[in-house]
């Protein structure tokens, strides 16, 4: 383990201000996101930030100077990692942070047209050429994907794309936005934008093909006596009858309350799986009632499940 004073290149009696200065100097030089593709620099930067986490903290520095702690074990894990590991990803999954003042970012279409298109005409000098296609990824809301929506997509340079999300859009589906790519030259049309959508998980709905699944917590009395309840669906709340004696795990079907298939126009269903939930606080009345009831009403659910 290297001595943190040596790592930062400061003397043992350096002031807090000097240490901060030295660290900042090194960080400017070594920050991995400023050195894409250079793997060595990441190790150096980690050493430097580790040294600074020790010496930049007056209390820790004192303890280190007294020999109470050593230079090891100071590294805190970096959740999410460095930015460059996301920014470097190619293809349509290449991240939403783009220098996309369209045409501003050199992309493969530019290279192709420079090499093969236009008989040696440079970019932007005369000639009609269709604008470049651009691709993005965008996270979209679960409900927007399920029932469809119109959405504004904001890009890192403030550029705005209007996107129509059709009902029943699937995760990782690519939507084509005609004419929303780079501008064409001459009279040629603009390119298209391709957006790969990532459907975000929902707090309580899950989706299997065109069916929606939901786990519905119900009270003990609703389970035993039956009830008429309001249940959320992707299309809004609907009334549903719970039969008396419904158990945890019982699954009820709301026909046609799933997602409408874009091609067949058939609607999926929503499956509601019941889950009986006891009161949060132990209830004395319930306890004494059950004690009395249990004496004459033994039953063995584990035998039924084959566990005995």
């Amino acid at each position: 383990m290297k001595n943190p004073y040596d790592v930062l290149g400061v003397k043992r009696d350096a002031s807090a201000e000097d240490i901060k200065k030295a660290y900042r100097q090194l960080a400017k030089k070594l920050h991995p996101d400023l050195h894409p593709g250079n793997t060595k620099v990441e190790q150096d930067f980690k050493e430097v930030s580790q040294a600074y986490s020790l010496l930049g903290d007056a209390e820790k520095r004192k303890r280190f100077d007294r020999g109470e702690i050593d230079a090891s074990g100071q590294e805190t894990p970096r959740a999410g990692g460095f930015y460059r590991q996301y920014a470097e990803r190619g293809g349509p999954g290449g991240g939403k942070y783009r220098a996309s003042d369209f045409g501003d970012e050199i992309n493969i279409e530019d290279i192709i047209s420079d090499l093969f298109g236009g008989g040696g005409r440079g970019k932007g000098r005369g000639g009609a050429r269709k604008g470049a296609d651009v691709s993005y990824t965008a996270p979209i809301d679960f409900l927007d994907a399920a029932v469809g929506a119109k959405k504004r997509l904001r890009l890192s340079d403030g550029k705005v794309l209007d996107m129509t999300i059709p009902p029943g859009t699937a995760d990782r589906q690519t939507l084509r936005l005609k004419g929303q790519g780079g501008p064409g030259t001459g009279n040629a049309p603009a390119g298209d934008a391709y957006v790969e959508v990532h459907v975000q998980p929902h707090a309580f709905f899950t989706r299997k093909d065109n069916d929606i699944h939901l786990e519905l917590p119900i009270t003990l009395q609703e389970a035993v006596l039956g009830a008429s309840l309001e249940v959320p669906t992707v299309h809004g709340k609907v009334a549903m009858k719970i039969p008396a004696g419904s158990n945890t795990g019982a699954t009820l079907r709301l026909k046609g309350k799933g997602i409408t298939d874009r091609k067949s126009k058939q609607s999926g269903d929503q499956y509601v799986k019941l889950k009986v939930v006891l009161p949060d606080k132990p209830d004395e009345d319930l306890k004494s009632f059950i004690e009395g009831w249990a004496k004459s009403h033994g039953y063995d659910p584990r035998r039924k499940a084959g566990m005995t």
Partner: protein
Amino acid sequence: MPITFEQVTLEIEVGPDELQAWIERSWVLPIRQEGTYLFDDADLARARLIAELHRDLEVNEEAMPVVLRLLDQVYGLRRTLAELNRAIKALPEDARVQLQKELENQSAAAKD
């Protein structure tokens, strides 16, 4: 797994007002859902980068968009270069050899 606004402020030690301002300037683009924000790992890494640019690299508010924009361009170029590399690797052997020779000529010419 999405990360919440609050988790990001704790993870990168930045105030909620500051993080909110970054979102409003489109420096970070979390998804907006039901009155709150959801961050993915790339959003978190980018927010941390902005925090470090600001705190440690002393990039001030006026210079930040310039720095981010240049970074976005560098990464964009690198993605394009990677695509080009993949395309070249898919070429037949003799075409690659020819390309290699041509590149060597170019780099020799550039040194003169």
